[in-house]
């Protein structure tokens, strides 16, 4: 009798080969690769544009410092960047290599879902349809080894697919003269890892569908239906449902927060100041403070409900983590601004562990979601009637 490891390895080996030889996998993976490369190409162009703007800002600041004059053609206390004026104290920041991955982080949940579901939707249903499951089970192997082998084989292919995608992406960066720093490289590597987990989540949904349905057609429809519900419909209805439960947010005070008042004349002012000042009425200030508190309380009550609706959405958690890694639309806001206020800038960048710590719930969820779907697939498969 062969050992457990050998039996499992045999299944994994076959599954791995089946996937990489499968016409449907090759086609979808090529599309995935091409679109990823295209999105990266777009990101690289944006990076270069941002780099040009950065260099322009630096030159202007240096020119202003050299002449000791206010920055030319710039309103006092402000610098101009594409899209507007930035106030005094603004420090331009060199764009990050992570900028290039912005679009990839957006397409990953969509293309990844298609690729992973295509890999998983018929793993068991096809064996039942082709009657190979009975043949397989007549040999010395436990049922759990079959489903585990199929899952491991699929995950390995996902790792290879993402590895290839990121390998090509890094090569494209280097060809485009973008050399990531060690910190950026760590972020890219982590982005690759969460991409793998994201795809594994979708793969687990496909695998579950393949166990639940004997027919592969029904299985693929069910898998995409589930993804549609947990990744799009539920998060979308979360906001209005939370609104219905919690009620409307508090109304904004009608009185403005500031009023412009004539400058107070103080003793010794000669001549009296000419410019008006912003004045805050203590009563108005209190009203605004109360509104702020009520508004915060409202959102504090609303957030758990909206988050609960998105809790099973791998894409939501993937987006949150990507943003924390400075990849993706959320994380790109700072980079799009091209810098930050000197006073607000942290003395040093937050540690990667701090960043991951900030999204530990999302990381945990990204591991728990595939575990749930695998568990359903596993339990159902162990009880499957193979007559």
């Amino acid at each position, binding site marked *: 009798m*062969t050992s457990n490891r050998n039996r499992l390895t045999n299944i994994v080996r076959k599954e791995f080969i089946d996937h990489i030889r499968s016409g449907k996998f090759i086609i979808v993976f090529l599309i995935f690769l091409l679109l990823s490369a295209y999105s990266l190409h777009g990101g690289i162009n944006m990076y270069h544009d941002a780099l040009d703007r950065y260099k322009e800002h630096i030159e202007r600041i240096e020119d202003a410092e050299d002449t000791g004059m206010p920055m030319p053609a710039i309103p006092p206390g402000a610098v101009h960047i594409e899209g507007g004026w930035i106030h005094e104290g603004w420090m331009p920041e060199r764009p990050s290599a992570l900028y290039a991955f912005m679009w990839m982080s957006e397409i990953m949940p969509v293309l990844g879902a298609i690729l992973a579901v295509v890999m998983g939707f018929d793993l068991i249903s096809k064996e039942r349809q082709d009657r*190979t499951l009975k*043949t397989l089970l*007549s*040999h010395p192997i436990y049922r759990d080894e079959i489903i585990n082998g199929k899952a491991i084989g699929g995950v390995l292919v996902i790792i290879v697919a993402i590895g290839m995608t990121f390998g090509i992406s890094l090569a494209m960066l280097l060809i485009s003269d973008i050399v990531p720093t060690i910190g950026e490289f760590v972020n890219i590597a982590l982005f690759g890892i969460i991409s793998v987990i994201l795809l594994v989540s979708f793969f687990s949904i496909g695998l579950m569908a393949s166990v639940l349905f004997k027919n592969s057609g029904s299985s693929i429809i069910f898998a995409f239906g589930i993804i549609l519900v947990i990744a799009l419909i539920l998060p979308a209805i979360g906001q209005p449902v939370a609104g219905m439960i919690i009620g409307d947010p508090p109304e904004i005070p009608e009185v403005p927060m500031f009023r412009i008042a004539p400058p107070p004349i103080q003793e010794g002012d000669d001549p009296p100041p000419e410019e008006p000042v912003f004045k805050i009425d203590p009563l108005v200030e209190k009203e605004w403070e109360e509104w702020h508190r009520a508004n915060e309380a409202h959102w504090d009550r609303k957030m758990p409900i909206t988050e609960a609706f998105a809790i099973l959405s791998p894409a939501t958690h993937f987006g949150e983590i990507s943003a924390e890694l400075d990849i993706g639309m959320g994380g790109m806001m700072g980079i799009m601004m091209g810098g930050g206020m000197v006073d607000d800038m942290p003395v040093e960048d937050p540690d990667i562990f701090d960043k991951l710590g900030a999204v530990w719930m999302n990381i945990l969820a990204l591991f728990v979601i595939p575990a749930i779907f695998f568990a359903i697939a596993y339990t159902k498969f162990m009880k499957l009637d193979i007559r």
Partner: protein
Amino acid sequence: MIRTENLTKDYNGVKAVDGLNLEVEEGDIFGFLGPNGAGKSTTMLMLVGMIEPTHGKCFVNDIEVSKDPLSVKNIVGYLPEDIGFYSNMTAEENLDYFARFYKIEKSARKKKIEEVLELVNLGGVTKKAGQFSRGMNQRLGMAQALINDPKILFLDEPTANLDPESVFQYRNLVKRLSDEGKTIFIVSHILPEVSNVCKTIGIIKEGKLIAKGTLDELKKEFSGIGEDQKQMIIEAFDPIPDLTHSDILKIKYSEDRKRVVIESTSDIREDISGILLEKHIRMKGMKMHEPTLEEAFLSIYKE
């Protein structure tokens, strides 16, 4: 070699197998007969460790199957009814995949695959299993059941998809495997197939074993003809007159008296032909009637 004790399988309250007690000796070719839904295949699935019994036990080579299914699977070969193979792989690749579950060295594995493929006339076939005919699939199924050189073979409707030539080859193969000392357990509802190759036969009805014995034993027991009785059928061109003989137990004439069935204690064909000759009756034919398995089977199922 194979033993079941009060073996029961319940599907949603319906007993597919109901308290089955069965024993198959080593080296036997055992035919398990019964109509569709009688519980034959379910019994076989429990014997090969693919489903667990609801109650009772089954033993293969003294191993309790539900307690150690893998050890059982290592010493048995199973040909499921309507077997399926991986359509993207050749016969050799399919067999190699299954053979890897056994502790067979690489070179021995390759040799064994070639050997069993030759045995089922699939040697040198390089096309993918997806392009196989049902007959080829069935033959490949036989090859996969033999890949581990099993002590016991379980064959579920083995001739269902075979053409006459393949059926002939299959019968020879089963006899050859039996000569090698393998125990063979065949499930079928094709009576001639079972009567052709099986040494012992068991008949199952509604999950229960209702008869078991050699072919002759079953025929004698259930055909309605006693062990020491003979049955003759006489046909003539002219009406047959009343026949008398001391050994005749029972005689039945057709309406036109041109056909008569005689049950007697001995073979009295010579005496009867003499009587008919004397009376100038032109005979069309006279034959001893051997009870068939079909008659026995139908008789059992009528009860």
